[in-house]
């Protein structure tokens, strides 16, 4: 009976999501129609852009991996209602950490180089979250404000490194030279192109889920998020846990940045953070911070992103439409949830 009930709940939850998704897709169709485009072609592009061919599948993983990790970086502090909007800066610091290790220790063999690069990028990301974490711990400075400020600093730090001694003088854009090939993420498959990054990205949400829902510390994070005062009264030290969750988030975002360097760009590029941060917030919120839910919503948002670019390239649909669809999706899913709760 217990199992059944859980199943029912899950079914109801999935149903609300499907309703939200359907509504957003329907709205997208209507807008395509109003723009005088072929609606059916738009819908089919939405799918084929991600899964239509091996190349497309490669494109999908390229986008999916950083989005997934960035979403986890946002989701873990979200467990106790902290908003790590600094994952963008932490991502960039992870990238800076990756190139730093690669250029400073350029003679290392691959076996040592890759773990070192991953560790360095996570450490740099964590370090970037450490300032806001300390300010939260010592002075209760709101983490949204402090992490956004850290983002701004990180943009300039990237410019500084990308135009410093490692810069690529022939690129028409601030970026470094390519890192030594020993530091490139090992390729596991060539067509579709899949490297170690995907494996890490798939393990990360499972590990995060285990951490949040099965570990003692995760229990305390959730308790703090559910009722901070009650948690405190029963010995949960939220004052320490909250900053710590930011640092963990920072490490994951940093890892994403490092993997973006070692797996895709092979160098530090100004602007490489793309729109990952904004999308990661949407992804994490849609999933209510649940790491397993994040997998699904990250797949979904990636599909829409790629589908949108394809519609833009093939059908001349304005890219803004993609943003509208993403926003509507978030809105509809949140609304569907509110209605689900009202219906009693």
């Amino acid at each position, binding site marked *: 009976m217990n199992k059944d*009930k859980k199943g029912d709940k899950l079914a109801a939850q999935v149903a609300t999501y499907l309703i939200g998704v359907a509504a957003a897709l329907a709205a997208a169709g209507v807008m395509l129609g109003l723009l005088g485009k072929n609606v059916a072609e738009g819908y089919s592009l939405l799918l084929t852009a991600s899964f239509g061919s091996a190349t497309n599948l490669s494109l999908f993983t390229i986008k999916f991996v950083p989005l997934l990790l960035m979403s986890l970086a946002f989701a873990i502090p979200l467990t106790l209602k902290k908003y790590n909007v600094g994952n963008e800066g932490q991502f960039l610091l992870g990238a800076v950490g990756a190139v730093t290790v690669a250029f400073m220790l350029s003679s290392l063999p691959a076996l040592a180089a890759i773990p070192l690069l991953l560790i360095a990028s996570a450490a740099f990301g964590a370090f970037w979250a450490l300032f806001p974490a300390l300010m939260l711990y010592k002075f209760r400075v709101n983490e949204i404000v402090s992490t956004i400020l850290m983002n701004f600093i990180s943009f300039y730090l990237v410019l500084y490194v990308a135009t410093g001694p490692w810069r690529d003088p022939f690129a028409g854009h601030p970026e470094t030279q390519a890192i030594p090939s020993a530091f490139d993420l090992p390729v596991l498959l060539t067509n579709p192109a899949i490297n170690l990054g995907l494996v890490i990205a798939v393990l990360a949400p499972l590990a995060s889920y285990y951490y949040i829902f099965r570990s003692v510390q995760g*229990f305390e994070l959730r308790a703090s998020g*559910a*009722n901070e*005062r*009650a948690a405190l*009264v*029963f*010995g949960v030290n939220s004052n320490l846990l909250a900053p710590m969750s930011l640092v963990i988030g920072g490490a994951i975002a940093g890892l994403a940045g490092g993997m973006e360097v070692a797996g895709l760009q092979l160098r530090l590029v100004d602007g490489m953070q793309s729109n990952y941060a904004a999308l990661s917030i949407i992804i994490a919120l849609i999933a209510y911070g649940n790491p397993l839910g994040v997998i699904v919503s990250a797949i979904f948002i990636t599909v829409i992103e790629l589908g949108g670019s394809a519609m833009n390239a093939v059908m001349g649909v304005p890219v803004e439409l993609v943003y509208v669809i993403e926003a509507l999706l978030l809105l509809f899913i949140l609304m569907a949830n509110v209605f689900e709760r009202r219906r009693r």
Partner: protein
Amino acid sequence: MPAEELVRMTGIAKRFGDVLALDHVDFGITGGKVHALLGENGAGKTTLMNVLYGLYRADEGRVEIKGKEMAIRTPRDALRHRIAMVHQHFRLVSNFTSFENILLGTGRGLKFEARAQREKVESIAREYGLSVDLDAKVKALPVGAQQRVEILKVLARDPLVLILDEPTSSLTPQEADVLLGAIKKLAMNGLGVVFITHKVREVMSIADEITVLNGGRVAGRLQVSESGEKRLVELMMGGRGAPPLLQAGPTPARTSAAQGEPALVLTSVSVGSGKGASAVEEVDLAVRHGEILGVAGVSGNGQRELAEAIMCVRRAGSGSIKLDGIELTRLNTKQVISMGVGYIPEDRMGDGILPSMTIAENIVLGREHSPSFSDRFALNRKAMGAAALRGVEDYNIKTTSVEAHAGVLSGGNVQKILIARAFLTQCKFLVAHNPTRGLDIAATDHVLRSLVKQKEGGAGVLLISEDLDELMAVSDRICVLFKGQVMGVVEAGSYDKYEIGAMMAGKKKEASAS
């Protein structure tokens, strides 16, 4: 004046998932009468009233107002029909003043008629003896005053039907008497009042008619004039259990052999209140193992600060607090709990429950680190579930599963979670602050018996309560707090309500008395 039937509810059914919370209930409210709605925790009292107030929609049944069928879909609809409700748990904005809270939701368009409202509220407060400081922030008010704000807030809307869901459970008996007087007066002015309570005394003193719910069904309906107190207790207990401890009168004097080793020793402890002045001043107290020390006093006289200082939730400003010789003031809450100290906080919704987490998780909160529920890193969910199931069975928590969210439980069942949490294991020491608040008669009795059992198992117990009957029933000694100071300590066997009452009002105990 012929009594007019204001509300008639017929065949009301309401289901939450697998739970049939209301099973075709009929209920009526008559103008000028007080209708007591009784029943055990989780019987469906709050749910029935939430249906009338438009918070829940009934699955079946009809509601008539003055003989006409009406659909009440939202509290706004209810207010339009002049039905107002004071909820079991406060719904005040703690950063607003009392008056701002009262004003909330009364505005038309963008405009508040603040001045006119103020006069009105002041005159209502005067008429019914519900005095509160209208300009104080709600969070600075003691619970009793907050309860009065809630009541003024609904009275300011000129209700015809007034629903009071356990309004007295957070009041001292004196405050409750004032409120009961006000309710009587409201009924005399023609209002129909629904009054939910677990206290027999209150029912006998103001109710006209009584409906008893049991498991979502009407178990009995009677007029107070035709029922004796004994029959009422039987009905409220659902016909089971031995006569409650409370009815057995005060604890007898102890033999000196029962004296154990000192457990908790407080030496000139002062605790700040966060508002500058100290809430607890230079308190010296000692509680022995195998002893229940009752702490009497009107709420807001430092009880909460004292409890929180022992638990290290709040820092004692000065003095020493020792448990079995170990100084607690240098520890943190987690360390205090792992020494074997159980805590039942006063404010169950604020300080106690994690509404979005499961019952099992709620019951082990505070002991998640202990080896019985986890290894170093991972939770042992099986052990958690088993312990929670024991708690649910022991304390008769009404739920379909230990994996259900604690937030959907009835008020009394939430309280039982806190109890189950504290009694998870035999404690070395227990701090219980109003542990029976909101519990039905059977559950209250069970909790008091559990306190005694903990004591017999060797625990020292600090029982803080505003209910003298309860204190006298189980305490070996009672100490009285007034403005953060100990007015005196009375031994079992020589309890005298008037003496204790005088100390609660600030009169120091004469040294010669014992």
